[in-house]
């Protein structure tokens, strides 16, 4: 088979997200337009500029992890393993199956195990007192927190994978890029099954402080439920979130052979970098537009074929305008016709993980034919003048959807998903 014949499809979805346990609760939250943002409880946020976040009510033991797994894994690792198990159960696949070398793992994460790393730092440095930290207080799994690759390792061990295992860390496009990497592995013939997704658990003092320092996160501390306001004129920064989505991505023919149910096919993806600034975005959206254009080209689709866009929609003025410009630039008139929404309005911005949660949302949207809304969008920014689906979910006929991401470092990624058999030239 040539690469174009090896098609990558999603056959299982697992999610650990703010506002509920698992995939179904996640979808309920999104379609109800409910926000999961609140005052931070995972640490005492007093003294921080931004004190709100979208937290997961996550009990690792109740979620099925063993006490040793809980001890060994940072919160981000716990999320990923729980999401991966749900995805595998959902797809009905037996892993690693007959050929473990054909099973791969591709997990994205922007900040890795920094929550665990910071907790241990506080102990070893005795509250920051010692530059020469005290090694005698080091826990056995400390190095596992130092390297983000641990997150992929944990998922790979769950699956018994012996194929390529990668941790992709491209800031806030990590989730999309990790899924894109999985598609590459399937198309080039290296793997038949990939557990792909992303995880981040950035709700810790150091990560909050670093976003405080650049005033990227909201200071709307008095009204946490309405603090994440993508595309709204009253937005004042993004709201941090956490979570993980992992998907079972399979080569279409082998998925068919085992009678798997397909959520969606990944029809095209592309990444571009703006090579402009580590955090800044040019208002013209040029590189994101180019990523969208190439993703459509690889999917052999036209702008008119896109029925829904899951936006990056972080809720910073800079991003929302950049993105609006990118949609207009790449999709022309279609940008004004197609519904677009940002689920970060409900589950916050979980950095590298968010791309995987957004692709999971796209897969669920295609299955249920419902567009999740942009919560809190009541007074649109006049410069964000597209159909950003305010407040209420919308039933909508969708065959193909676009999801985009934008990250620190200048990364811009676009991915096109279609209903099963919604590829170019096939009846949807």
């Amino acid at each position, binding site marked *: 088979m040539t690469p174009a014949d090896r098609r990558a499809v999603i056959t299982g979805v697992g999610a650990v997200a703010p506002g509920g346990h698992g995939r179904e609760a996640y979808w309920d939250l999104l379609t109800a337009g409910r926000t999961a943002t609140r005052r931070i409880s995972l640490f005492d946020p007093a003294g921080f500029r931004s004190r709100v976040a979208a937290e997961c009510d996550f009990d690792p033991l109740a979620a099925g992890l063993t006490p040793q797994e809980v001890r060994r894994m940072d919160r981000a690792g716990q999320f990923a393993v729980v999401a991966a198990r749900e995805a595998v159960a959902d797809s009905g696949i037996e892993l690693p199956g007959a050929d473990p070398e054909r099973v791969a793992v591709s997990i994205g994460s922007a900040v890795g195990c920094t929550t665990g790393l910071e907790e241990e730092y506080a102990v070893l440095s005795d509250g920051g007192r010692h530059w020469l930290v005290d090694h005698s207080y080091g826990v056995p799994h400390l190095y596992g927190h130092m390297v983000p690759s641990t997150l992929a390792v944990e998922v790979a061990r769950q699956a018994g994978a012996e194929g390529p295992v990668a941790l992709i860390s491209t800031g806030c496009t990590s989730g999309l890029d990790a899924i894109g990497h999985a598609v590459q592995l399937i198309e080039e013939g290296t793997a038949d099954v990939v557990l792909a997704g992303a995880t981040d658990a950035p709700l810790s003092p150091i990560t909050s402080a670093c976003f405080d*320092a*650049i*005033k990227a996160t909201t*200071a709307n501390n008095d009204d946490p439920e309405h603090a994440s306001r993508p595309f709204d004129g009253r937005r004042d920064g993004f709201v941090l979130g956490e979570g993980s989505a992992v998907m079972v991505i399979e080569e279409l023919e082998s998925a068919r052979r085992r009678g798997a149910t397909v959520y969606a096919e990944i029809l095209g993806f592309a990444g571009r970098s703006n090579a402009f*600034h*580590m*955090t*800044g975005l040019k208002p013209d959206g040029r590189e994101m537009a180019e990523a969208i254009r190439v993703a459509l080209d690889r999917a052999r689709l036209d702008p008119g074929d896109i029925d829904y866009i899951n936006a990056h929609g972080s809720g910073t003025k800079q991003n929302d305008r950049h993105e609006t410009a990118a949609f207009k630039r790449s999709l022309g008139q279609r940008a004004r016709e197609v519904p677009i929404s940002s689920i970060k309005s409900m589950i916050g911005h979980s950095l590298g993980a968010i791309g995987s949660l957004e692709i999971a949302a796209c897969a669920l949207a295609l299955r249920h034919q419902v567009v999740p809304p942009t919560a809190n969008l009541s007074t649109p920014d006049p410069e964000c003048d597209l159909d950003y689906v305010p407040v209420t979910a919308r039933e909508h006929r969708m065959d193909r959807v676009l999801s985009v991401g934008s990250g620190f470092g200048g990364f811009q990624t676009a991915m096109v998903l279609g209903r099963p058999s919604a590829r170019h030239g096939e009846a949807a």
Partner: protein
Amino acid sequence: MPEFTLDDLRRILRASAGVDEQTDLDGDHFADTAFADLGYDSLALLELVNRIEREYGIQIPDGDLAHTQSPAEALAYVHTRLREARV
């Protein structure tokens, strides 16, 4: 209450955001050269604000200093804040 001079501004910029090889912070035109032309971007100005706030014990509302274009304007702005803080 400490004074805040152009030398303080230079010192903080050097320590926090570095200096490009082609930039001369000690040149005659430093005070009136746009931050952008000195090689300082939005992050550099945010870090400048953070450090001035900590060192001089004043609060600088979001975006205020970023709206100044040059060291001379930033200096005038910080002087105003320091005078207010003295009242």
